[in-house]
């Protein structure tokens, strides 16, 4: 017998356990009673109704989205679009049955397409999203929504106006079950008094893409120029800043920071080395730093409170308790891992005590097999399908009715929405990132006006 076939919990068992425990959290509870007589197990699997998708933008991230969609049974890709033929060809290779378009307006004319994913360069989002919403398509728009507050506001306002379509910004962390459960844990007050948070994106990479012609080179390297990019704090930091808004349960009141082109002096005018600091209400603050010149500690984040610190990295989380923090009880049995003079209590959504202890014996890294992007796209498709079905059921039962009646019905329906960021979350994260980038460029602090965060 191979070692992994012993009674030790192997990876496959763990994965099965994960889906079981995820299922349990869906059911909303843990077993407390055994049934008196247990009937045979039923074989209901349940099936999510498909929503046909068009993907606009087949660059690196667009292709990552296509790959992820190919693993989701209820998100058939029926159309792909890119105005650069080489990218369109590569995108189409990942969705062989999809119609190909060089012009997004033609894709939007395709009545077969029910939902679109917009994965073009950020500064090109607005026109595409507005046209898609006007065409009645559900829209998943990559984050940040835009490079200017005006464009971001136009997108969010249009999305909120369209009652009958689902809009989701690409803040995938908001759909990630691991993070959602972690937030629920944080909301129980486990941090004590929240103090601060910090996060980082460290990677050794130029962020520059090679291209065949100077024009193409310019277009593909939109991230490196201020005219088309809000830089590291915008393109990468937006997810971290959104997490700060979400976990700290508020909006920043001020932002300051420093940035420089420290290493890649190749004609770019976007900083490759930044540190930004945000002030939040109630004496809390948050810092985000990013560099393209060093990869130490990669991507991670920590929230600090008077009772503990919670660290997130590689889609896992740990709790480091203060000695005077109240005893929660369960942590006595929990798996702990050592980090240079510190012992972190492993936090994982839905893990049972038995699973955790088996895992401790195994000592293997365990990560949720589903990526944050997969959670986000699945939930986008589920919410889009449910919204469309709700709109149709309402019209068939009550006629077109008034907008207020429909709105009231849909607001009620939205309470059952699968975890996902909404237009306002996307807008606020984008405004936070845009202003953070502006503060870096100006080299001066910016005080946020409350109305900047309001869509209308």
């Amino acid at each position, binding site marked *: 017998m191979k070692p992994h076939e012993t009674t030790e919990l192997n990876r496959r068992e763990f994965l099965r356990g994960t889906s079981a425990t995820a299922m349990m959290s869906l059911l909303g509870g843990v077993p407390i009673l055994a049934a008196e007589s*247990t009937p045979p197990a039923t074989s209901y699997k349940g099936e999510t109704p498909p929503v046909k998708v068009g993907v606009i933008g087949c660059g690196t991230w667009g292709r990552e989205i296509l790959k992820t969609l190919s693993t989701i049974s209820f998100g058939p890709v029926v159309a792909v679009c890119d105005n650069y033929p080489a990218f369109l060809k590569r995108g189409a290779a990942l969705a062989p049955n999809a119609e190909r378009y060089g012009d997004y307006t033609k894709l939007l004319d395709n009545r077969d397409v029910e939902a679109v994913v917009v994965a073009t360069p950020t500064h090109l989002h607005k026109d595409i999203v507005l046209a898609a919403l006007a065409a009645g398509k559900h829209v998943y728009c990559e984050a940040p929504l835009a490079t200017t507050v005006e464009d971001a506001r136009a997108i969010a306002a249009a999305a909120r106006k369209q009652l009958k379509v689902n809009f989701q910004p690409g803040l995938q962390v908001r759909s990630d079950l691991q993070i959602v459960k972690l937030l629920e844990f944080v909301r129980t007050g486990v941090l004590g008094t929240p103090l601060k948070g910090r996060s980082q994106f460290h990677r050794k990479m130029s962020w520059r893409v090679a291209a065949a012609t100077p024009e193409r080179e310019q277009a593909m390297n939109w991230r490196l120029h201020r005219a088309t990019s809000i830089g590291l704090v915008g393109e990468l930091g937006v997810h971290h800043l959104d997490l700060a808004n979400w976990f700290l349960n508020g909006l920043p009141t001020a932002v300051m920071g420093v940035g420089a082109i420290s290493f890649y002096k190749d004609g770019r005018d976007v900083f490759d080395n930044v540190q930004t600091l945000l002030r939040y209400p109630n004496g809390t603050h948050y810092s985000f730093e990013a560099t393209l010149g060093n990869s130490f500690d990669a991507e991670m984040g920590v929230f600090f409170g008077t009772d503990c610190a919670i660290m997130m990295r590689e889609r896992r989380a740990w709790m480091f308790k203060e000695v005077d923090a109240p005893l929660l009880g369960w942590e006595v049995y929990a798996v702990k891992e050592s980090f240079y003079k510190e012992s972190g209590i492993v936090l994982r959504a839905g893990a049972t005590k038995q699973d955790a202890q088996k895992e401790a014996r195994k000592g293997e890294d365990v990560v949720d097999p589903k990526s944050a992007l997969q959670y986000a796209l699945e939930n986008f498709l589920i919410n889009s399908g449910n919204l469309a079905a709700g709109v149709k059921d309402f019209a068939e039962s*009550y006629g077109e009715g008034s907008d207020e009646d429909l709105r009231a019905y849909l607001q009620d329906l939205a309470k059952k929405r699968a975890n996902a960021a909404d237009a306002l979350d996307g807008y606020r994260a984008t405004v936070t990132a845009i202003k953070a980038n502006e503060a870096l460029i100006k080299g001066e602090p910016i005080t946020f006006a409350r109305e900047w965060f309001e869509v209308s």
Partner: protein
Amino acid sequence: MTMKAHVISRTTTAILAMALTTATQAADWIKLASKPGSKVRMEGTSSIHDWYAESAIIRGTFEVEPEFLTDKTLQSVKSLTTRETNPKAEIAIPVRSLKSSSGQKMDEIMQEAMNMKEHRDIVFKVKEMALQGEPDAAGNARFETVGDLTVAGKTQPCKLVVALQRLDGERFKFSGETKLKMTDFGITPPSPNIPGMSRITTGDEVTVKFEWLVGTAAPAK
């Protein structure tokens, strides 16, 4: 005439008579249509916790004499006070509109258990409705109601008390509740086998509560 032919003849006459009655009803009865604000809720149990599923969608019409709108005593509304004639009422609840307390996956399991692919709606068809006691001064009343309930394509008779509430001149609320067994409709109560856990079992009995709003304004298309 043989006995058999005689029976057939009597049956034909009865059918003809019923058809004629229906024709006269249709000519002067009013048709009230479903209105937003309707809701239905199913409540059940399981070995881990109670659950519910609810929907705000009830499709259907209620056909009755026009006096129903104005006569709060209902004395002139024969379909509701005698058993000879009955209002014509049929409601349908799309299975997909039912949202459970346990999220999307359980909704999908519920849809599969109710064989939604072949039977998209839960249907209730009123056969008899008879006033119970007297309506109160506001015209609110209760009715002993008998109908056919169809779930997952299987029909069972269903008896319940329905309350009428006159909301305003134009809208009326019918509400009631009844208990059902999933197995009576050929549905096996979901009992998922989840590794690492004791079996979760769902109770067979389900309580259904509804509030159906109907009104006189333009009916659903």
